[in-house]
């Protein structure tokens, strides 16, 4: 049986449809990330799962039980908020144990649960302090501890790392991943950060304007984006999207402005069709410098070279369109020179410029 089922959930605020029918089924132990820009409805959906908002239509089922008219406290969920939402005048220990205290759990049992949660999160020395005496990272641990101690069916996280600085964010991300692996908890996690989504999720639901644009494992979403929207959202830098058309004989792609030739695999030729306008999606890391003995498929005029550490980003233009390639530092060309690249045909994704959807591979 599924742990959490989001069934045809809609939400209207006045004249605005914030959620336009969301269906997601979550199995026990899954880590689902709702990913999308602000205003896509992801936080609204999380609040509906928590019971803080009523859906306009549809239902939430936890362990098969309808949550319609069920108060948040009776839903067996725990929530971690972006702003930590700690009670300012209570000690860390009481903050963590607050949910249990309100549920009249006996004191000894409560203290044991708080101690265990604090041990997992390594915040035992902080238990006597007040939230104002903690750093951002420590506060976030306390907020997570407050959820942990309840041992709920479903954990809900609302952009929990976005108030932390970059270094701490990376650390907490790893910590959350470790926690999930250890506890095998079912988690719904909202973020607009695709790196967080990629690293944490077992499944990602990319949301756009109140709908799920694509749902799948991080690999599926990353390697096979279903639309231009997903392709441009995932990866840093994201996929190159080159406008052009299929050649007259149907066996290759010609980018607008020329200087590009990508063979189309035999399997895709029938769906694309000769002369048809298409958009070719190529990941920066799939572009490799052309060897002298191979036929180059792309050539760009190098404008900027950025060393990011393990790899170097080469940014330039090909026939008026911007192109980014990620290459080894030793392969980086000089600025202002032409740079010949190859793109393996089986790694290129094809999109329909009219619908924005990917052609089936």
């Amino acid at each position: 049986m599924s742990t959490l089922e989001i069934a045809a959930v809609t939400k209207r605020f006045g004249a605005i449809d914030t959620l336009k029918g969301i269906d997601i089924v979550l199995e026990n132990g899954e880590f689902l990330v709702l990913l999308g820009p602000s205003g896509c409805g992801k936080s609204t959906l999380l609040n509906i799962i928590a019971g803080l908002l009523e859906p306009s239509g549809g239902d939430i089922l936890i362990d098969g039980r309808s949550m319609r008219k069920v108060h948040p406290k009776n839903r067996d969920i725990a929530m971690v908020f972006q702003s930590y939402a700690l009670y300012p005048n209570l000690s860390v220990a009481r903050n963590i144990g607050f949910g249990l205290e309100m549920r009249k759990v006996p004191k000894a049992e409560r203290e044991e649960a708080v101690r265990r949660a604090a041990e997992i999160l390594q915040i035992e020395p902080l238990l006597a302090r007040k939230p104002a005496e903690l750093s951002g990272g420590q506060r976030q641990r306390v907020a997570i501890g407050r959820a942990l101690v309840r041992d709920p069916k479903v954990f809900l996280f609302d952009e929990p790392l976005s108030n932390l600085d970059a270094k701490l964010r990376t650390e907490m991300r790893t910590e959350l991943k470790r926690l999930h692996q250890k506890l095998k908890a079912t988690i719904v996690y909202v973020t607009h950060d695709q790196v967080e989504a990629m690293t944490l999720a077992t499944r990602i639901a990319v949301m756009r304007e109140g709908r799920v644009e694509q749902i799948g494992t991080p690999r599926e979403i990353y390697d096979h984006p279903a639309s231009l929207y997903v392709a441009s959202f995932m990866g840093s830098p994201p996929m190159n999207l080159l406008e052009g058309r299929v050649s007259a004989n149907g066996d290759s792609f010609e980018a607008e402005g020329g200087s590009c030739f990508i063979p189309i695999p035999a399997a895709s030729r029938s769906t694309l069709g000769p002369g048809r306008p298409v958009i070719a999606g190529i990941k920066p890391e799939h572009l490799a410098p052309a060897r002298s003995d191979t036929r180059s498929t792309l050539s760009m005029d190098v404008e900027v070279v950025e060393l990011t550490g393990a790899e170097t980003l080469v940014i330039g233009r090909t026939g008026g369109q911007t192109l980014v390639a990620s290459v080894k530092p030793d392969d980086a060309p000089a600025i202002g020179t032409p740079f010949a690249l190859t793109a393996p045909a089986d790694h290129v994704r094809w999109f329909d410029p009219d619908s924005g959807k990917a052609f089936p591979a």
Partner: protein
Amino acid sequence: MSSAWITTRAWLLMLPLLIVMIAIVGWPMVDTVRLSFTDTRLVGTSGEYVGLANYAKLLTGNAFLGALRTTAVFAVFSVAAEMTLGVLAALLLDQQFRGRSFVRALMILPWALPTVVNAMLWRLIYNPEYGALNSLLTQLGILSEYRSWLGEPGTALWAIVAADCWKNFPLVALIALAALQAVPRDIKAAAVVDGAGAFARFRFVLWPYLAGPLTIALVLRTIEAFKVFDIIWVMTRGGPVNSTRTLSILVYQEAFSFQRAGSGASLALIVTLIVTVFAGFYIALMRRSGSRA
């Protein structure tokens, strides 16, 4: 620019204000102190130096202690009622409901009324012959015959407390509402998810945000209540049988009704001293909340 010049310039800029303050507050204050050691009458000859006689007579007489007791009763009960009603009103107005802005605006009206107008309104309501309160209570069957609310020593002070409360609870409500609106939404939501009931939510979520502003409101209202004059003067003039005679009313009677300027001055200074203690408490609170921020 040297720091000495900055200091000098600051004093120069403040000088006009200082002169005005000394003229309208400082000098009368000093003169009141001088008066309080004399038996000066309001009209006629200037008085003789009598030392601490005025103070001795006041502190041992019944009038002062009676007025002090009346003032304390008035202050404690009116402020307590205003605080309770104000917080309850703020909790209501913090809820989402249709017409909330309208009700919020409406609530401020009593506080915006001049005290004298408010006092006149309540005198009408309490009128022993055609007052609305008598009419209401007899029609509801709570009262068998009309009463003179302001004419009986047993009810006059409480009638004024109610009128003062009606006028001043909106100020407390306004301050409390502003504090409630500063409570982060996430914390309120967290408490709901944590299963906190209405009382626990008030105690653990709202109270930490209310406590500071409410303490300031409490001290300010207490100072005001200790100085109360106008509402009582309009409604009862301190009567009946001195049952509503507060310290300020007593000062007025001494100095102007009985024309004893000397003893009126000594009484005024005692009232000033009491209010200064509260004011000192208020300043200490402000300093503490200032250093915390």
